[in-house]
């Protein structure tokens, strides 16, 4: 019963005391692919972009404008973390359809690590923009008795970020495996297409939620107010 459990991972080999699992190998392969791809694609950048560079710029500016729309702030400092997160999640979720490859996000360790990264990044960006005291004060907003609830929500939303990604990707994989065991050849293909869509949507949702959390931690200390506070028109 436990050997097929989605909460367990199969150890492929060991390096000293460290177990190397299939998900770790897939993750490192994806990381190498993304890093090498980015490195080769950005070798010959020009003012007049080639076709390849235009696609690249489209991706980067698309992510940048999405972050800007969500946080309503300067998105440039957030771009490296969130852009990498989105691209990694996209490739990781979609990699499950390759034969012999298991999506790293279908096991609980990878979503847990990514949620932890987001958790640390939220507080890092919050402390960096508002200062330690100012950021800690924001937990006691709007009243002091909200403090435990705010702290609790920090933990639960990180947990739900992890569980959402894991649950969606893992359940899709489980579904395909069950249908494959029940009925043969053609039937799993539409489900795999659905699983591709779910993978893309979940990568988007994870990144947008990370952006929302970081944007909330940055607070309302933007340079220009979005809209002027409404003034009463007629005063008696």
């Amino acid at each position, binding site marked *: 019963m436990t050997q097929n459990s989605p*909460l367990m991972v199969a150890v492929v080999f060991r390096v000293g005391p460290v177990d190397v699992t299939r998900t770790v190998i897939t993750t490192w392969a994806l990381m190498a692919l993304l890093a090498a791809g980015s490195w080769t694609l950005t070798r010959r950048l020009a003012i007049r972009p080639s076709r390849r560079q235009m696609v690249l710029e489209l991706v980067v500016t698309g992510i940048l404008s999405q972050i800007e729309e*969500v946080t309503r702030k300067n998105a440039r400092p957030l771009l490296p973390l969130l852009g990498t997160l989105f691209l990694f999640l996209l490739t990781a979720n979609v990699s499950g359809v390759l034969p012999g490859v298991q999506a790293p996000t279908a096991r609980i360790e990878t979503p847990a690590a990514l949620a932890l990264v987001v958790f640390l990044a939220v507080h890092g960006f919050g402390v960096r923009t508002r200062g330690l005291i100012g950021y800690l004060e924001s937990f006691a907003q709007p009243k002091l008795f909200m403090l435990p609830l705010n702290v609790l929500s920090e933990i639960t939303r990180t947990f739900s970020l992890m569980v*959402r990604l*894991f649950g*969606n990707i893992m359940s899709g994989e489980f579904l395909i495996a069950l249908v494959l065991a029940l009925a043969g050849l053609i039937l799993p293909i539409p489900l795999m297409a659905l699983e591709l869509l779910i993978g893309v949507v979940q990568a988007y949702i994870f990144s947008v*939620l990370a952006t929302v959390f970081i944007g909330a931690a940055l607070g309302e200390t933007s340079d220009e107010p979005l809209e002027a506070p409404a003034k009463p028109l007629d005063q008696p």
Partner: protein
Amino acid sequence: MDAKIISIIAAAVAVAIGSIGPALGEGRSVAAAMDAIARQPEAAGTISRTLFVGLAMIETMAIYCLVIALILLFANPYAR
């Protein structure tokens, strides 16, 4: 009854009942978003982004039920 059989039934009940609420909630929110896009097509980008985030939040409830079911089935501390 055996603890294993009870936990299998409990897992099925958790997913079955736990997915009713999120299904109704997602249906309502998508209907409201469709209505809003039909009224104001120029705001479709903002509405659909908010819709996706909201759907993810609603869906979390169903995913929690799924995780409870998985723990009951695969990592149950009482059915060893």
